């Protein structure tokens, strides 16, 4: 469980996050939605400690990240898997080496076990044939999937994904969503996903948070999101014709 307690963050006097309070439970995928520039990435980076918020606390199962020293943070981070918006694969390593890297660093497995585990993760994202390629030989969507494989290699307790679906076709998106949802429930991971993808929201949105201009404007799930009376959220949601139609149909 991750608790975010009235976290605020500013850049050069501009408030990007304003007093965000939220709880993310384990075994559940929490989706953070919001317009581009709403502060989703900044919130995620505050949670993992890449940015230090000016105010507020972040608790990992009760452990306060701001009161930890470097060593404790490093220790905690071995329990974290993160997928960056731009994948951030190591371009000096092959795909397989990328996925094996966290295992090389932190597991006590033998080479063959590590390789097997990495191949298993690559298989889960459907890329076992690409193992010897370099990241720059892959499409953007394939890089994303490799990054997911790398993020889950060490069986993390906390998984953070910044827009796992951007740049992917609907079918692959669906697979990725199912993958994230599957491992989250299977291993009881606390998962936070940033997305603008309404398909994801309707598919795996057991817990949805809507961020607008740095405020947490709405919180709920896929079953009540279409019927909310939050104006900002409705403007955001029903900018898409598809979603509009879905709502009309559900009302009928």
């Amino acid at each position: 469980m991750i608790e975010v307690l009235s976290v605020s963050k500013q850049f050069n006097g501009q408030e990007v996050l304003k007093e965000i309070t939220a709880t993310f439970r384990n075994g559940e995928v929490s989706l953070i939605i919001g317009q581009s520039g709403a502060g989703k990435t900044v919130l995620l980076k505050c949670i993992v400690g890449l940015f230090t918020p000016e105010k507020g606390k972040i608790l990992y199962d009760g452990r306060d990240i701001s009161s930890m020293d470097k060593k404790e943070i490093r220790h905690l981070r071995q329990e974290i898997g993160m997928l960056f918006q731009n994948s951030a694969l190591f371009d000096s390593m092959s795909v397989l080496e990328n996925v094996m890297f966290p295992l090389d660093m932190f597991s006590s497995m033998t080479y063959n076990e590590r390789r097997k585990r990495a191949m298993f993760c690559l298989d889960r994202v459907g890329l076992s044939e690409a193992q010897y390629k370099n990241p720059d030989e892959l499409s953007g969507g394939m890089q994303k999937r490799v990054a997911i494989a790398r993020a889950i290699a060490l069986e993390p307790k906390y998984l953070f994904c910044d827009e796992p679906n951007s740049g992917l076709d609907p079918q692959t998106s669906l697979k990725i969503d199912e993958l994230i949802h599957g491992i989250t429930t299977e291993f009881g991971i606390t998962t936070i996903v940033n997305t603008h993808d309404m398909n994801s929201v309707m598919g795996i949105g057991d817990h949805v948070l809507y961020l607008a201009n740095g405020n947490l404007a709405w919180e709920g799930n896929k079953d009540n999101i279409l019927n909310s009376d939050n104006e900002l959220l409705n403007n955001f949601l029903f900018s898409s014709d598809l979603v509009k139609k879905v709502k009309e149909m559900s009302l009928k």
Partner: protein
Amino acid sequence: MFLAGSIKSFGSYLILMRRVLSRPQRWSVFFRQTLHEIYQLGINSIPIVLLISFFIGAVICIQMKLNVESPWMPKFVVGYATREILLLEFSSSIMCLILSGKVGSNITSEIGTMRVTQQIDALEIMGVNSANFLILPKITALMSMIPILVIFSIATGIAGAFAIGEFTGIITAEDLTTGLQHEFKQWYIWCSIIKSFAFAFIITSVASYYGYRVTGGSVEVGQASTNAVVSCSVLILFSDIILTQLLMQ
């Protein structure tokens, strides 16, 4: 202003070095990275070191012949002066200046690119000490390769002198040999190697520092590489003065 800025940079350089010079989290990964860097930074630099040293050796020999030799000096002075220049300055200081251009800009742009594409953030998120993981293998690799590069440089410089003597006939091989062996002090070779250790540390650590603290995009990475080469060169020249004073007294 400039002074305050320099002190601040030096402080953050020291803080970075404290993170770099700690125990590697995984020795096996550290050795793998170091081998890779030995290849990247050391082996790949051998051709340019050989090429430049050969020609500089030849040119020094010609210059000594034209400018220093005179009827009342013994013939071996050309060989003697060539050797001293190679041993004392060229094969350590000047060669490291050249390497700071090649190796230094390479290191800064590599680490800088990793910074702006969030690869360093990805390392940190995994719980890796990114400074230690990226920088320590580079320092170790270049410091362990630099004595070899120095020896190669001295040898090819001397070969260059012999080649030009043979080719143009300005000096016979016997005279050159006599000069090269005249009052030879082994300590000078050690001086070269000791100095080059310091320069290797400067090149790798300063270039890494510039790359590691890049913010922005490809333009900033380019600027950082240029700044890194300039700083490395200045620092090499400064420390050359100090080390020469210390070692030659």
